[in-house]
């Protein structure tokens, strides 16, 4: 017993020593090369503009800290919208795959196999190219509904009392979804929905056959059986793997860099290059993603306990 305690302490000390060696070696080398270090740069003026700011006021005269905040808000916006739509689409596809309708179930299976087996980065380029190359310029924008404009500058939607109008180079007013945001969101949603569909299908199939038969024998239709009997029980199996899909979606949103959506990684990359402080920049990115991921996990664990308790009380 005592021996194993010693071994544990030894291991901890060894890990600590290695970390200390890396930290001091790095600090020494940065000092020797006269490379700036520390986080003082966060309070300095950023000097660059950001294309979309998720309704945070920002200009080039603001600080790096604020610029990173805008990047974080952009990441959060695309991740939240992505999680919402991916859950919805994934559930529909998962249920469709179980449908007695042969065509519907095969279509769903085809969708899942396609999106799951093409790298996400390739899919993002695909959507971005579709949007920026196939849509017309702002002056020839498609106008499918009154106040709605589709062009290679993005999708412009009317808000009450605020209809987009073409002025100068681009539309102004209304709500704007940029091609970068749209491509990233569509890419993340369709890709993650493929995995979610399989989780939903597995969850539904895990409900014992007897439960389903009992539901039908009580006179419930398929829809009612799903709603009241099958899904509530399937949920307990679905939630834990769903958490990791939400985490994946959030982390995958960092691929935004490739298609020019100003997410946290994109803004942090620019910051690192303007300040030359790569180690601090990477540390910021890691800390932020860790925080977001742990928060999502904590929320999902809480939700999981809530539905699990209800099951246990049965």
């Amino acid at each position, binding site marked *: 017993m005592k021996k194993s305690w010693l071994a544990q302490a030894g291991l901890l000390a060894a890990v600590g020593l290695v970390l200390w060696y890396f930290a001091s070696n790095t600090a020494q080398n940065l000092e020797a*090369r*006269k490379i700036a270090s520390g986080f003082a740069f966060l309070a300095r003026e950023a*000097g660059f503009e950001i294309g979309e700011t998720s309704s945070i006021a920002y200009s080039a005269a603001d600080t790096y800290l604020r610029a990173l905040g805008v990047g974080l808000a952009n990441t959060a916006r695309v991740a939240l919208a992505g999680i919402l739509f991916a859950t919805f689409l994934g559930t529909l596809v998962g249920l469709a795959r179980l449908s007695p309708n042969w065509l519907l179930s095969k279509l769903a299976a085809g969708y899942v196999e396609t999106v799951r087996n093409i790298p996400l980065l390739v899919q993002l380029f695909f959507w971005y*190219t579709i949007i920026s190359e196939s849509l017309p310029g702002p002056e020839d924008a498609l106008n499918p509904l009154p106040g709605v404009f589709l062009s290679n500058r993005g999708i412009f939607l009317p808000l009450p009392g605020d209809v987009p109008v073409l002025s100068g*180079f681009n539309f102004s007013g209304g709500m704007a979804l940029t091609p970068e945001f749209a491509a990233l969101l569509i890419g993340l949603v369709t890709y993650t929905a493929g995995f979610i569909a399989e989780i939903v299908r597995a969850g539904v199939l895990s409900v014992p056959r007897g439960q389903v038969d009992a539901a039908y024998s009580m006179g419930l239709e398929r829809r009612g059986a799903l709603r009241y009997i099958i899904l509530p029980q399937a949920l307990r199996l679905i939630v834990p793997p769903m958490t990791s899909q939400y985490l994946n979606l959030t982390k995958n949103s960092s691929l935004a860099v490739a298609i020019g959506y100003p997410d946290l990684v994109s803004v942090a990359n*620019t910051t*690192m290059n303007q300040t030359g402080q790569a*180690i601090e920049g990477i540390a910021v990115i890691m800390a932020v993603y860790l925080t977001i991921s742990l928060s999502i996990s904590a929320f999902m664990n809480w939700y999981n306990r809530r539905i699990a308790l209800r099951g246990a009380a049965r």
Partner: protein
Amino acid sequence: MKRMIVAMAALVGASAVHAQSTLEAVQKKGYVQCGVNVGLAGFSQPDSQGVWKGIDVDLCKAIAAAVFGDASKVRYTPLTAQQRFTALQSGEVDVLSRNTTWTITRDTSLGLNFVGVNYYDGQGFMVRKGGVSAEGKKAAKGKAARTITSAKQLNGATVCVQPGTTTELNLADYFRANKMTFKPVVIEKLEEVINAYFAGRCDVYTTDVSGLVSVRSSRAPKPEDHVILPEVISKEPLGPAVRHGDDRWFDVVKWALFAMIEAEELGLSSKNIDQQASSANPAVQRFVGASGDIGKMLGLDNKWALNIVKQVGNYGESFDTNLKPLGFDRGINKLWTQGGLMYAPPIR
């Protein structure tokens, strides 16, 4: 990912790199590891055979010619704007010769030293001729085109730009100073950012004028459809950089650059240097190493400069081979004797 690896290299291996001077390390491994642009015609770009060409590449070769007497002893590391400084800091490359602007922030806080300037540049804007729509659509519809002739007309424009560059900062400064707004579309890969511009995602593409000329002539579907606006909004002295704190290597790279400029001034070229080597002109005698021991002072062979000119050429030759065919004007990059800014301190 590459950035991560480089950062790791900085964490782990940096002390080893620091232990010996770069010149010794280069001589020992037998080649110069040169950081270049991933592909900018005229500066550094592989040709159809995969051979790197351009004025930045010629500088890499000049260093190899000076150190080894063999201009081919170079290995190239293509770097994006974002990767370049970390690659140099961590010792992944020996010299960064990648159309990089010399600024005080970079010189003082990035742990590197700029050795000089091999191209005097400035930032400009490129727009589609006759207005804002994607290629051809405008003409087909026959609408009246709004002609852009000045950068002052760009209020509200969408601008494609690469991140991690002085370009991004100058752009914001210029619009702020002129009380105009713009929407940046920031994409790291050159290929992707110019595709976005040519696809009509942006009204404007901005980078150094040299880059605009290069992209227009080598990448545009129809070069004549694009105009470079007259405003040059910044000074962009482009030059090679080395790591801070290694003066001997700094000297070697600096004088390899100056030797190319001095050779042009002395009228020495790759074609005539063998005949000129026996000239009675004492400046030429010193340059080719027939008198004095300038090479030894640099820690190199006495024929270092002769080898540079013989194997790579002088600055003017490099300019004419690489940049002239793309439509570059020599402009302020002429020698000082011809009214330009290219000036090398005396080699004596």
